[in-house]
Structure formats: structure tokens, C-alpha cells
């Protein structure tokens, strides 16, 4: 378990490095046409670092506030507290802070930058519909996210990718309103001008594709990590049927999620949806933060 955590830590840093590099590249492309070359990179990297550092420190509080999660004491929710504490012991990490969200759709998420600063939030609907072993299955899954630092990866990558989107949007707008070095260069009309024009077109395409590509990469990472958290969570509880029956209950739950939005979708146990029911088309699968619930149940049953 601990060896896996160490490996995940290294992976996290690599991923962060790549995300910052990605933003830097976008910044370079923008800077090439818009400012003098290196200024764009510097701005982009500084923006990425500031944003990721901000979400590193305050991301969990922002997410908890946006879902209206309330901290609960062991006296208010003894069963939930006992389960969280027990599984934290099994995982060998400090007990996360426990929150309840006033929502009737059964769901849960974990947040916090590392196991020492983590929180677990579950909806009132989850507490009402799940029995002890099912709740243990769900909490085991969430604790695995804490162990793997998936939350940190998710939050920071989302922020950095967001910065790239923001920059390309600003660039597109300024270009539309008539700024930009590329335009002035291409007015020369000789081969250098033609080359600049080609580069400019490539740059535009890159800027349009990059945020989308970044988003798709983020989503596929998120989906794979869900399978991993299912497997690891079951390793903690040593009881796959608990999580299986919890997922089955969630799959048929009729309640819609009010706090659902794209910014926090990847954090939840299952993708929160305003319209209840399973999304199955391949387009929907590609843009999902979570694998289809039936696939997750099937994998758990095979363990």
C-alpha cells in the first residue's frame, strides 16, 4: 500500500510537470503571434503555477462550499464516523474530516491535497439508502482516492488545463479585434510572409484543439482512476459485494443532483447528473468523468 502511494506521488509530480509544460506551450504559441516570444511562456507558466498552487491550498474548501457540505460530529453521525475512522486505520492514514451534503441523490466525494488534509463528503441520500457494508464500500472507494492523491491531480490538472483554455480564448478575442503580430508580418507578401501565415494557421488550429485534447486526456485519466479506486477500496474493506450493491443502488436511484456541475463532476463517486439514468452512447462515454456503472460492477464481480 505504502509503496503504491510513493509511486503515485511520483506520477503526480510528472503529471503536474506535463500540465505546466502544456500550458507553457500554449503560452508560447500565443506569445509568438501576440507578444514577443518568451513573454507568453513566462506569463503562462506563472499563471499555471499560481493557479495550481491556489487550488493546492484552497481547492478542497472551494469544492466543499460549492456543494453546501456541512461538517458533522461523531455524535451527529456515529455510524458514518465509525466507518471512516475504521477504514482510515486499515489504510494507515489519519482520519479525514467528515461532511454531509443536504442532497437526496446518493453520492459521495473526497477532497484535500494529501492524506493529512483530506475530507470525505457524503450526501444525506447516501446515508439514508445504504446499509453498513454498502457505506463501507463507498467510503473505501473514496479513501482510495485520498491515498492515491487523485484529488490533488484532478483539481490541479483541471486548473492548469483551465488556464490554457482561458489564454487561448483571450488570444482569439484579441486577434479578432485586430491585434497580433502575425497579421502584420503576413502583410509583407513574400515567402517569409507565407511561412508566417502557415505557422499562424497551425497555431490557431493548435489553440482550438489543445483545450479539447487536454480535457479528453483529463477525462480518460479520471475514468481509469475510478476503476483503480474501486479495486483499492475493496482491498481495504475486503468485501466486494458491499461496493457492488452500493453501486447497484446508485444506478437505479431516481433523484437528480442539484449541486452537479462540470467543474466538480470528476470528484464524485458516480458522475452526478441532473437527469437520472445511465449515459450509454459512445460520445457520452468519451466525455464522461466516470466509467459506466455497469462496467464497474462487472469488474468488481470478476475480482
Amino acid at each position, binding site marked *: *500500500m505504502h509503496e503504491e502511494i510513493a509511486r503515485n506521488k511520483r506520477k503526480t509530480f510528472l503529471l503536474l510537470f506535463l500540465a505546466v509544460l502544456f500550458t507553457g506551450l500554449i503560452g508560447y504559441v500565443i506569445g509568438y503571434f501576440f507578444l514577443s516570444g518568451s513573454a507568453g511562456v513566462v506569463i503562462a507558466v506563472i499563471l499555471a503555477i499560481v493557479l495550481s498552487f491556489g487550488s493546492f491550498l484552497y481547492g478542497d474548501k472551494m469544492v466543499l462550499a460549492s456543494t453546501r457540505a456541512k461538517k458533522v460530529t461523531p455524535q451527529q453521525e*456515529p455510524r458514518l464516523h*465509525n*466507518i471512516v475512522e*475504521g477504514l482510515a*486505520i486499515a489504510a*494507515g492514514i489519519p482520519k479525514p474530516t467528515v461532511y454531509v451534503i443536504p442532497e437526496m441523490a446518493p453520492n459521495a466525494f473526497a477532497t484535500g491535497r494529501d492524506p493529512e488534509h483530506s475530507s470525505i463528503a457524503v450526501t444525506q441520500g447516501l446515508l439514508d439508502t445504504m446499509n*453498513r457494508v454498502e457505506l*463501507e464500500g463507498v467510503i473505501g472507494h473514496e479513501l482510495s482516492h485520498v491515498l492515491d492523491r487523485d484529488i490533488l491531480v484532478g483539481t490541479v490538472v483541471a486548473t492548469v488545463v483551465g488556464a490554457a483554455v482561458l489564454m487561448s480564448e483571450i488570444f482569439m478575442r484579441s486577434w479578432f479585434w485586430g491585434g497580433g503580430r502575425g497579421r502584420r508580418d503576413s502583410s509583407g507578401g513574400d515567402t517569409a510572409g507565407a511561412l508566417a501565415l502557415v505557422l499562424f494557421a497551425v497555431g490557431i488550429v493548435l489553440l482550438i484543439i489543445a483545450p479539447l485534447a487536454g480535457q479528453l486526456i483529463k477525462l480518460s485519466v479520471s475514468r481509469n482512476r475510478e476503476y483503480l479506486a474501486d479495486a483499492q477500496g475493496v482491498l481495504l474493506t*475486503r468485501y466486494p459485494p458491499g461496493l457492488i450493491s452500493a453501486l447497484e443502488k446508485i444506478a437505479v436511484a431516481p433523484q437528480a443532483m442539484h449541486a452537479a456541475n462540470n467543474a466538480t463532476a470528476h470528484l464524485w463517486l458516480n458522475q452526478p447528473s441532473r437527469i437520472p439514468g445511465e449515459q450509454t452512447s459512445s460520445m457520452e462515454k468519451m466525455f464522461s468523468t466516470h466509467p459506466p456503472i455497469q462496467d464497474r460492477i462487472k469488474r468488481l464481480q470478476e475480482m
Partner: protein
Amino acid sequence: MSAAFWIVLGLVVLLVAWLIWAFNRLVKYRNRVDEGWSQIDVQLRRRYDLIPNLVSAVQGYAAHERETFESVTRARAQAEGASSVAGQADAENAVTSGLRQLLAVAENYPDLKANTNFLALQEELTGTESKIAYARQYYNEQVRMLNTAIQSFPSSVLASTFHFGAREFFDIEDAARGPVQVDFKGS
């Protein structure tokens, strides 16, 4: 300097680096085993503290079941006095089966089962039982890693030089595994 000198020097540096790494790894594993054991201890103690409360709650409704109360109390006293890992495990099995009897007795008294104080105690007990199980799971996992490192070559040489001893697993018989079933809320 000859090439041979540098090769020998390089090998010595590598060996020293390995020694430091392997030694620190053994220390890390040993500390985790100790930490795991103290976690089990904390949870067991919490269960000992619950027993008198639980006994007195049941006593209020079923005063004549004296034999059950005495056997639980006796098992608790024995467990608190246990000194070895295996002895502790045996004594805990007695505590667990005593608690089961106590809860089986409680089953026969509908008034008791509806008592909020008793229900709270019961949740506490179920929670503590599962925490003991999880603490045991963590402890045994760490013992397995320590023992593997101590027994496998070449770290075994280092372990015997610096007196790292293999530790005992905390085994509980199959029947006592998992939380006591006290779930009658139907959820």
C-alpha cells in the same frame, strides 16, 4: 590512479548506499509494525471501556442473566492482563464470544432493543469491532512486509547483524472475524 581503483571505489560507494537504504527500510517497517500494534491497542482499550456500560445497560432489563455478565467481565479482565501477541489474540476471542452472548441475551428484550442509550452503545461496539478488525488488517500487512524483508537475502544479513526480529501475526479465529452482528435496524 588505475581503472581498477575507480571500479573498486564505485562498488564500495554502491554497497554503502545500499546498506543505508536497506537499514532505513528495516527501521521504517519496524516502526510501522509498532504503530499498527498501538492502533490495535487503542481500539481494544476502547472496547474494554464499552463493556461495563453495555453490561449495565443490559442488566437494567435482564438482571437474572448473571452468568453472561460474569463471563464477559472475566474475559475482559483476562484480555487486559495479556502480555504476548498470541495470548492477547486468545483473550480477545473470549471477549468477542462473551459480547456475542450478551447481545444474544439483549435480543430477547424488545424494550432494551428500543432503548436509545443501548442503541448508541451498540453502534459504538459495532464500530469498535470493525476498527479492531481494520487495525489488525493493517498490523498484519506491516508484519508481513517486515518479516519478508528480514527473511529474504541479502537484507537478512543486515537484519541479523542489527537484531531486527521477525514479528508475530495477530490472528483471530475465523468465527471471531469481522464485526459482531448486531444489526437489527433492518437497514
